[in-house]
């Protein structure tokens, strides 16, 4: 595969793609997070190993990276997190706070990197998954007074697995971007 030729047009296009915020239809902003939460609920009923997947987190990371606006990331993270909380047995705000932080930092990171790069997406997904799990563990321990049993190696494996799932998922979601193509 020949390497892309460096031209002025390609450079400008790259700069534009790197600095611009992706746009989505409102229905996409509504349905995709909802679908991710529903998958998070229903999929484990049929496939036990699906509990490993964290679709709401992946959707949060994707929209935050693509929007490249911290406030948008905060809103996306808080909304998806609260939705996930509302369907869980734990108090409202546990996932909300963690995903708010993930959305904020993901949006902030996206301002400095080319988030269309798959390798970078993979690494960011790994990092934010670990970040998410760590802060969730802190929240559970600090606010609920519980000590969740977490295996560090398992969490790293889960992080890699979710990141691997995230790559094709993000490519599918890229098709829903209005600025794509």
């Amino acid at each position: 595969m020949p390497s892309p030729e460096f031209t002025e047009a390609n450079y400008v296009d790259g700069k534009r793609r790197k600095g611009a915020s992706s746009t989505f239809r409102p229905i996409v902003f509504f349905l995709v997070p909802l679908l991710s939460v529903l998958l998070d609920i229903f999929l484990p009923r049929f496939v036990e190993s699906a509990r490993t997947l964290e679709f709401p987190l992946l959707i949060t990371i994707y929209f935050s990276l693509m929007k490249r606006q911290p406030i948008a990331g905060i809103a996306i993270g808080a909304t998806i997190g609260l939705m996930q909380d509302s369907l869980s047995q734990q108090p409202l705000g546990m996932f909300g706070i963690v995903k708010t932080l993930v959305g904020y930092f993901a949006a902030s990171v996206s301002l400095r990197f080319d988030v269309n790069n798959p390798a970078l997406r993979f690494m960011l997904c790994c990092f934010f998954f670990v970040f998410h799990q760590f802060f969730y563990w802190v929240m559970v321990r600090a606010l609920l007074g519980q000590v969740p049993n977490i295996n560090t190696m398992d969490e790293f494996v889960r992080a890699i697995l979710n990141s691997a799932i995230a790559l094709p998922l993000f490519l599918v979601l890229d098709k829903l971007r209005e600025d794509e193509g």
Partner: protein
Amino acid sequence: MDGFLGRYRNLSVLVIVIMAQLVLLAVQVKNNQDVRLIRVWAVTAITPLARVLEGIRANTFGLAGEYWKLIEIRSQNGALKVDVDRLKLENQYLKEELATAKRIEAMAGFVQRNPNKTLGARIIGAGAGMNSKVVFIDRGSTAGVQKGMPVITPDGVVGKVTASYPTGSQVMLITDPTFACGVVSDKTRVHGTARGQGNNQLLVDYIQNEQSVEVGEVFFTSGDDRLFPKGLPVGPVRVSRQGKLFKEIFVAPAAFERGLEEVLVVLEGVHQQIPDASQMANVGPEAKALAPPPVDPKAASATGLPTGPSQKFPTDADRLMDRYKALGEQQGVSYGNGGKVPNFNAPVGPRAIPKTPVAPVGEQPVTVPPAAATPGTTAPTGPPPGVG
């Protein structure tokens, strides 16, 4: 503020959203004591602030309040000091009253037990001069006090009346250098003359060096001076040593041991039996001063002993006179007519026992008149040399 929020808009929004969700969490979550976290956090957040505010209030308003309280306390302190002073005075007064009541009670007991006819008096003044050994009492001639009457306390002899005025009398204390009275010791029955020295001791004079007087022996009035009735305590011996002519015996006046406030003037003296030294060994000075209780008249009539005012005890001179009388009757010699002199060394027969049954010691009663110089009394021999 707007500039800050505009500059850190993203971070501000993040904080606001996080805080909102934390509040949402806190409303739902309860701790292990079933208290919602929102309450725990609120109290935890408020408590330090309240503590700081309370500290500020305590250090400012509290200080002012303490200052005003201090002013109030100072006024209260002044009032309390006045109260304390008043109570101290009152306490002192009541103590004095209590002590007086105790003294009067003791004196009343003494008067009840003592056969002498006495009159209570209070010392109201001392004589003029630094070395004065006279005092004034509040009873005078209108109360029956006459010159020469003995003055005593339950503890012992105080002195004698040297001048009687209508409302008061002058009393010469036994410590006066010109005072003297006849005394006899309770243990060895040694007779002597107690003389004032001008200090707080009496010198018992005219006791031969061969005679034994021990320290601690108590001297009583002997009645030889025809002034003080026999049996009144004078004081214990403090010093007893050999002298040039006579023994040097110093006695501490028992009446002055506890100070003088109330005294008794002996209006009519009655000789009493001198207590046995063995019986006086283990009793205090006050008990030593108390004479034996009056004999029950009914019991006394059954035993034939004299009772009441007639219960009188003779002096050695009385016994000597009775012995001479008995010897005269035994040998058929009458005194005062010249002629045969009886054998005074002959033993006295059973007939010579005194006619009147008296105390077990075989003494006869003798009444001492109030005034020593009153002629025609049954007083014994004259006072020893030096008796004042």
